[in-house]
């Protein structure tokens, strides 16, 4: 008996144990971040609109998100009659896979990383496409026209904005000469890449706002047009998974932007992980700030903006970077 356990540990190996512990940590970070962010969002929205925001539930309303999540957990699991059940059930689960996977490769600090994969950024980009797929099948499976339109919008938007997103990351990959996120963060010991690549940073940031479906690019869930967009028919737990994924995605794109352009965990005096979170949350705050300031763009304007401005500019940027580096 004892033998087998030791055997198993041996077989499993240190690496796996480390990964499992890391995954648990990631899970905690994801949940904590989402709870924190929902509270921040409501509080920031409140103060931008000159009101208080959540206040009465817990000190400063800090327990508000807990109350919400407990309530959502305790809600009746309601499945509408006409939905395509397998798709309808699969979508909220599927949207959570990329979220978890992505956290594995993000370097929170020089040593604080679940696993450094040498194709790190590819992992993130590859799995982030699952988000689109899950929105698609969620919208499709809901058997609701608003959901369907939301889903179709989401796909068109994601296809359009994935390209400038990638093209904006490529110059940095060229400069750092690596796909690994830690290498990229390490390469910015001297100066942040945002200094060399301000245009790429702007393009990436705009594209990532679109990728996370935030205002001014929140067309898939445009409230005034499509009720609640692709998750119109979702309730309780399943809805909260979408909710959670949205807020985690916000964190992820900010974390990537920080790692790629703002020096990652680099920073004086304070430990790296603190710097990392400070920078990330500052970017998240800008995302929130955007949301509570701007109106929503129209669908064709959104696509035009990507195809006519972002993609050519990012191509140009890539060309110039490549030329300067190699000549």
């Amino acid at each position, binding site marked *: 008996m004892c033998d087998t356990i030791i055997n198993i540990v041996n077989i499993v190996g240190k690496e796996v144990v480390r990964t499992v512990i890391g995954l648990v940590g990631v899970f905690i970070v994801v949940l904590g971040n989402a709870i924190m962010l929902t509270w921040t969002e409501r509080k920031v929205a409140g103060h931008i609109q000159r009101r*208080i*925001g959540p*206040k009465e539930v817990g000190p400063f309303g800090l327990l508000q998100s807990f109350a919400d999540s407990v309530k959502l957990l305790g809600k009746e699991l309601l499945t509408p009659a006409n939905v395509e059940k397998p798709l309808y059930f699969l979508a909220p689960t599927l949207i959570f896979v990329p979220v978890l996977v992505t956290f594995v490769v993000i370097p929170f600090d020089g040593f604080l990383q679940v696993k450094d994969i040498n194709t790190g950024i590819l992992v993130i980009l590859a799995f982030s496409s699952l988000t689109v797929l899950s929105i698609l099948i969620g919208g499709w499976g809901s058997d609701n026209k608003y959901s369907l339109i939301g889903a179709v919008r989401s796909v068109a938007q994601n296809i359009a904005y994935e390209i400038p997103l990638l093209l904006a990351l490529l110059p940095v990959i060229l400069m750092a000469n690596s796909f690994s996120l830690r290498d990229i963060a390490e390469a910015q010991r001297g100066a942040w890449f945002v200094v060399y690549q301000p245009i790429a940073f702007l393009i990436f940031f705009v594209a990532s706002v679109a990728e996370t479906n935030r205002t001014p690019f929140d067309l898939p869930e445009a409230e005034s047009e499509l009720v609640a967009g692709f998750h119109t028919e979702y309730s309780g737990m399943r809805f909260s998974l979408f909710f959670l994924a949205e807020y985690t995605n916000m964190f992820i794109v900010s974390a990537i932007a920080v790692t790629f352009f703002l020096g990652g965990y680099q920073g004086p005096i304070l430990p790296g992980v603190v710097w990392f979170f400070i920078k990330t949350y500052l970017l998240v705050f800008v995302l929130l700030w955007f949301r509570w300031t701007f109106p929503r763009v129209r669908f064709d304007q959104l696509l035009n903006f990507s195809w006519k401005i972002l993609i050519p500019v990012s191509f140009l940027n890539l060309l110039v970077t490549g030329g300067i580096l190699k000549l």
Partner: protein
Amino acid sequence: MGKRSFHLETKDPIIKFAVLDKILDLARANSLWPITFGLACCAIEMMCASMARFDIARFGAEVFRPSPRQADLMIVSGTVTKKMAPILVTLYEQMPSPKWVIAMGNCAISGGPFVFEGQYNLVEGVDLLVPVDIYVPGCPPRPEGLLEGLMKLEEKITGTRRFPVPEPKW
């Protein structure tokens, strides 16, 4: 006055987890997400309650969900006509339980000033359609009335009132 077709019943569950139930009740009472469902004049006062001056967000109830599937609370703010009644009932049924209803304004409570002999298009009180938990009278009620209704609902869910009672005025 028509006859009520709904009676509020409270069934005790067979197994009870006292602490868990209490936590759940507390969470539910403090995170009442209303559905964006404005009918008439009172809808403006409902909006006022969620705006900067009165800020319903302090109680965590500012998350107005446009989809009934994600809402817990239906604030019936305005006159319910016979043409609207089936839609209101559908929306109520689409909300996942536990769910609550606040009848805001006199129209929602009893038809209000629009009741007269020979009327042909009015539902005289939304409690003839769906079970109502809290009644907030007024034409329209002040936003404070709605906030007070929200607190009364919290009291109804958890059994205790957390907030001070403002001085009554007559």
